[in-house]
């Protein structure tokens, strides 16, 4: 009979007692209008899932209250990967902080670098050369494909198809090779610089990208053939985790999850950055708002990315890849090694870095694979930000997941986590 108190009594945590009790209490308080009735069959239970669960895509902890197999209410507990990058940012120069952004959304490091660099360039009012803009766009779109490939592999594996994961990873492997040629690193590449990019694309790299954009659409076609009419895949995803248009806006879902309810909110169109207003592409939307819609959106986005990359390669202008202003960006390695001024400038950039005007603040966001990734920077006139807030798309999407999970079946939990596609490195910051 004493169900209400039994949640807390049953658990006697030995670690972070206050935290555990507050979490259980919060689950109990959620929707206080729902009365906890008697439970003669004993079908109610509280299930802890994670943080060390292989299907939660990192260290996400879910606290689910179940009635049989149905989730009555749930609470998400995040923060197991909290490293305090915002605090670190306040103690580093802008350029020094960039490698930390690689490790936030570690599935698409390139987008994060570009997000930071564009934000700093906006607040310090630095213009970057045309060629650098196009190179960044190519990198961002490759990162988007890479991130969506992992989503696809992991989500389809969550629905039961193991071999699919290997196929998407074969393509990801090719992307790693491209990035290896692109900036010298396979994974956390830190290729973007404030004021441009680190190095130009080599002819080999351009050939590799062209080769990839030629063959990748065939892969997408094959995957569509496999999944789009697959009965098992359909039944696992159709009408699962539906969220209404109204709720999606109210809870602030972002990225493909928001576009899956029919809102064409995409930073590339909403406030175009780099040269996204010069290339043609569509923003795919769906109306259903279920897990299947999210899958279709991401599949179409990969095709659009290929379209953008092809246009960028065709338009790629000649010219410098970094601003020629020693107060605003690092000098090239040639200057550093062979001239005194170059070396002094390099030293100054490493020591103090870019100094935006005193007392200003601004926000710049890009469309990362997971949604709107924005940096809000407050400057005090030194080379370190006074405050840097990272608006992480996974964080906002996870809040939506808490809403989506209510009323779903326990077996669909992993599919839904896969469908919303959070990265804990980003949401925990």
């Amino acid at each position, binding site marked *: 009979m004493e169900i209400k108190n039994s949640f807390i009594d049953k658990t006697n945590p030995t670690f972070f007692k206050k935290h555990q009790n507050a979490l259980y209490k919060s689950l109990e308080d959620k929707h206080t209008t729902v009365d906890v009735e008697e439970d003669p069959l004993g079908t109610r239970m509280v299930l802890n899932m994670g943080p060390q669960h292989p299907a939660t895509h990192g260290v996400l902890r879910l606290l689910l209250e179940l009635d049989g197999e149905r989730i009555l209410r749930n609470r998400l507990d995040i*923060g197991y990967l909290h490293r305090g990058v915002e605090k670190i940012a306040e103690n580093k120069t802008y350029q020094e902080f960039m490698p930390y952004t690689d490790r936030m959304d570690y599935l698409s490091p390139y987008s994060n670098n570009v997000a930071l660099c564009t934000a700093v360039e906006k607040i310090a009012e630095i213009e970057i050369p045309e060629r650098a803009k196009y190179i960044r766009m190519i990198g961002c779109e490759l990162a988007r494909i890479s991130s969506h490939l992992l989503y696809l592999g992991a989500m389809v594996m969550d629905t039961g198809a193991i071999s699919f994961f290997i196929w998407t990873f074969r393509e990801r492997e090719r992307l790693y090779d491209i990035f290896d040629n692109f900036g010298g690193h396979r994974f956390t590449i830190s290729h973007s610089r404030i004021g441009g990019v680190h190095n130009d694309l080599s002819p080999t790299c351009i050939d590799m990208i062209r080769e990839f954009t030629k063959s990748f659409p065939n892969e997408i076609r094959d995957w569509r053939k496999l999944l789009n009419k697959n009965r098992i895949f359909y039944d696992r995803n159709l009408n699962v985790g539906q969220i209404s248009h109204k709720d999606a806006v*109210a809870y602030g879902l972002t990225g493909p999850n928001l576009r899956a309810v029919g809102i064409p909110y995409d930073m590339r169109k909403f406030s175009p950055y780099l040269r996204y207003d010069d290339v043609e592409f569509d923003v795919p939307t769906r109306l259903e708002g279920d897990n299947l819609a999210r899958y279709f959106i991401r599949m179409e986005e990969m095709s659009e990315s290929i379209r953008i990359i092809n246009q960028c390669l065709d338009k790629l202008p000649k010219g410098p890849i970094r601003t020629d202003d020693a107060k605003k960006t690092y000098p090239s390695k040639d200057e550093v090694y062979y001239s005194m001024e170059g070396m002094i400038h390099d030293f100054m950039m490493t020591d103090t870095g870019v100094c935006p005007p005193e007392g200003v603040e601004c926000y710049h966001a890009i469309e990362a694979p997971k949604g709107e990734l924005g940096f809000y920077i407050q400057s005090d006139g030194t080379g370190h930000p006074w405050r840097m807030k990272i608006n992480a798309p996974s964080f906002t999407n996870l809040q939506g997941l808490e809403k989506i999970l209510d009323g779903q079946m326990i077996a669909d939990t992993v599919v839904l986590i896969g469908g919303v596609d959070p990265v804990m490195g980003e949401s925990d910051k």
Partner: protein
Amino acid sequence: MSKEEKLNAVIEDLKNTFNDDVLETTSHAGDIQVRVALGKIHDVCSWLYKTHDFDYLVDILGADRFTSDERFEVIYNIISLRTGLRIFLKTWCPEENPVVPTVTDIWPGANWNERECWDMFGIKFEGHPDLRRIFLPEDFKYHPLRKEFPLLGIPGSLPLPTTTPDAD
């Protein structure tokens, strides 16, 4: 009408409606921040939501100004999906007992952002349905993004498990 003109019209309207409660506007690189009196922030938010369709809350962030009066700052990053405008509202609150009214009744998505603000700066949100810490455990006593919190942390503030499981 371009986006800037539309946004300026909204801000003019805001100033005319709330007169003295709109304290100052600052702008840099195309972003406009409007500072509103602490008592009126909820009214301004709901007025923007109803009158100008600012229906999508992107982010709420806190900041530590490290001044002797009105030390903390809460900034709201709101957009309108219909008109495509983005506006930043901000309000300042005092160091002792910083309390800001919640906006979760306007945008339910403010829930986690406000929890983050509480966790990192210790700013309380009055009327928040579930004001727990979000990243750090409840057992933690400090608010780490305040400027006086050391970068290396405070030794012993988080009880960590012993490395050998059978130690005690």
